[in-house]
């Protein structure tokens, strides 16, 4: 959180209108996960996680936002999620564990207009990428209205439509789980991912309680890292930076961890004591 606050302050100090997303370090997978919709023990333990818990996600210093045309969730149980990211030489692996108290997929508009998650993905963080084209918006549906299987949907299939993508889903009590494999070959057959590679990303949760997202009870909750619904501004999306493994700081810092060593202990308390009764 300190890192996010620092980013926010730095952005404000620049005094520019554009808001930028956050960066997440994504570790290399020691073993590729099985794409079956089940987060098996140990399978995602070392992944980079990003939580989208309502209302914390929209509370200062907020990184997320509720689409203004939709409705706020009733609670964290109504709509929240944890995303998982890993990579290896063959694919980007994404999982999303969603809390959704009211599942809905009796939709006639297609797999994107129902409960599901959206991953906005800008391959190589291309500054020239066009929203919805090269800068893709993927709907990962845990199931569709036409059958009981999960599905991947992209509105403009002419770019990066993931023909070889794999998706799995499951439905534990109170929500659903999605696992996705996004093969690099579907983006660029010559691409070999390396440490320090950067890709753009935005995270969206869709919670439909009827066929129209504007009906009461429906929610679009997004995390572009800047507290705004900047889905069409590709340059403002979050970034995923590939690393070998996560280090201290990649899972955030507790605010009480004053020396940022990832443990709240006597060293932090000594700093706390030095500031006792300080008042601004």
């Amino acid at each position: 959180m300190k890192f996010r606050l620092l980013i926010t302050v730095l952005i404000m100090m620049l005094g520019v209108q554009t808001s930028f997303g956050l960066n997440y370090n994504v570790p290399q997978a020691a073993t590729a996960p099985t794409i079956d919709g089940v987060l098996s023990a140990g399978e995602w333990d070392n992944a980079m996680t990003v939580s989208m818990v309502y209302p914390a996600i929209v509370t200062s210093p907020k990184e997320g936002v509720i689409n203004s045309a939709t409705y706020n969730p009733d609670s964290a149980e109504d709509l929240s999620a944890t995303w998982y990211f890993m990579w290896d030489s063959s694919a980007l692996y994404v999982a999303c564990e969603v809390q959704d108290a009211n599942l809905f997929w009796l939709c006639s508009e297609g797999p994107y207009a129902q409960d599901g998650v959206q991953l906005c993905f800008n391959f190589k963080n291309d500054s020239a990428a066009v929203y919805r084209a090269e800068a893709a918006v993927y709907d990962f549906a845990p199931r569709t209205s036409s059958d009981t299987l999960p599905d991947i949907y992209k509105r403009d299939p002419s770019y990066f439509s993931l023909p070889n993508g794999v998706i799995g889903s499951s439905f534990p009590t109170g929500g659903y789980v999605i696992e996705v494999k996004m093969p690099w070959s579907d983006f660029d057959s010559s691409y070999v991912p390396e440490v320090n590679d950067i890709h753009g990303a935005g995270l969206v949760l869709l919670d439909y309680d009827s066929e129209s997202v504007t009906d009461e009870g429906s929610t679009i909750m997004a995390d572009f890292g800047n507290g705004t619904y900047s889905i069409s501004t590709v340059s403002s999306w979050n970034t995923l930076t590939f690393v070998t493994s996560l280090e201290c700081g990649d899972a955030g810092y507790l605010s009480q961890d004053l020396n940022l060593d990832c443990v709240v202990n006597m060293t932090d308390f000594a700093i706390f004591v030095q500031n006792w009764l300080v008042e601004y």
Partner: protein
Amino acid sequence: MSGKYINYLILSLVFGLVITTASLAAPATDDWATVTLLHMDSFVDSNVPDDDTVILDRNNDLTPYADPCGPTITTGDQGYYGEALSFNGTTQVAKLINYQGLYGWLGYKTFKVDVWIKPYDIGADPNDYRYVMQIAGAVNFFLRDGNVRFQYHNKANNQTIDLTAGVNVNQWNHVVATIDVNGHGVLTTDNGTASGDTNDGSWLSSSQEITIGCKKYGTGGTHYHFHGLIDELKISVLKKAGPTSAMQDDLAAFSVLPMDVVSSKVVDGETRNVIEDVNTLSPGRSNDFIFGAAPSGSFPEEPNLTTGGGGIFGEALQFSSLQKYMGWTNGWSGSDYLKFEAWVKPFDFSAARYSARAPVLLDVVSRVKVWYRGGVIRVAVRIPGGSYSSEYTIPVQSGAWDHITLEVRPDGTFTLDSLYGSVTGSTLAGGWNHAITSYIVLGADMSQTGSTKCFFQGLIDDVKITDTVMPCGESFTQDYPIGDFSQDCKVDFVDFASMAESWLKCTIPGTAGCLDIN
């Protein structure tokens, strides 16, 4: 014992040391300021003069107020120090107000009376209430049943707090009674101490006159008259500590004016003297203070800077006559929030009516006015689409530096604060009339015409005008204190509890039991 509990033990021990140290180091920041000091040694022009020299020009003289004669001054050193004021117990009374509210008691938020009394009657008769002092509706200070009684009232329901301490007949008794801003009262005599609180932490700081030697002149009969001697009467108010200076950089500040150096700049094609806005964190604003007339004005005379360190911090801007006034800020376009801070030393606050003799300190043209009249400083704020709000007042200490803070908020509430008092008012309209291109003028009222622009007399130093709310933690220069986990801008027990709750928690990636807070 596990390592975790040993850590808790160490935490508790260290924290206990912190508390002890902090308690010992707590500074005292307040001080009592004298409103009047009466030695009771002689009459001057039929009054007992206020001999206090700390507060210049205060002149809270004591006026004998009984026909054909009031209390008398003793002879032959009968007082505790020198002479004393003698009351006969049947007819004599005096008042601390012969000037109809100009300089007298005007209602402070705190109060202290320190007096020597030698009673010949200590209220032994069941009908006796021998009054040393009364502020109608607020304070009763009398002798009854052989004791000193000190009563004061709270605001909410006029509940009376009644403090009693022993007193000795035919002897000099030193009596001190105080009321603080929280409605806490303490009475001390040579025989004991009593204290009490109003149930809502307030007290009624009435603007009534102060009567000495009787409950109220003309009422109550002889049983309410003091019989004996009163000497060395001192009334004080609790003076708050002002800021060291208001000159620190602040992005929220519209203009920061140290009043130390006059520069020359071209403004609207005309060379003018200015006090430069020195706020380096908002250099683009450069809201200098410009001497002379505002564009619509016609009074080109300018104030001067003091020399030789005449300000409270360095020099100050000096308004030495009614024919000079200060200029204006460039660029004020209205804001739903306004904060004005300044050190002010007024020389003239005695005007009996709103006129050229009612000097105006601040004029946010046609929106906010702060001015002096009748011994108080007054503020009024423009109601949306209407006239000004009611006037809200706090007392003035003439001849003394006072730190004035005015805060006008988006909801139309406003607070005027000085070292001697504080008042909160409202336009009662849920907002105020702020959205207009205008000027901020110091030292004159631009809405007045001709030569009656209500020119200020006195000194003004270290002015800061703020038009943006930027509290601790939201300011680039004033982040939350380290350890302020609750983000309430102070490191205290709330934060300690937060530290304890997170004790030994970790966020090491891939480590069992650690948290991931992304």
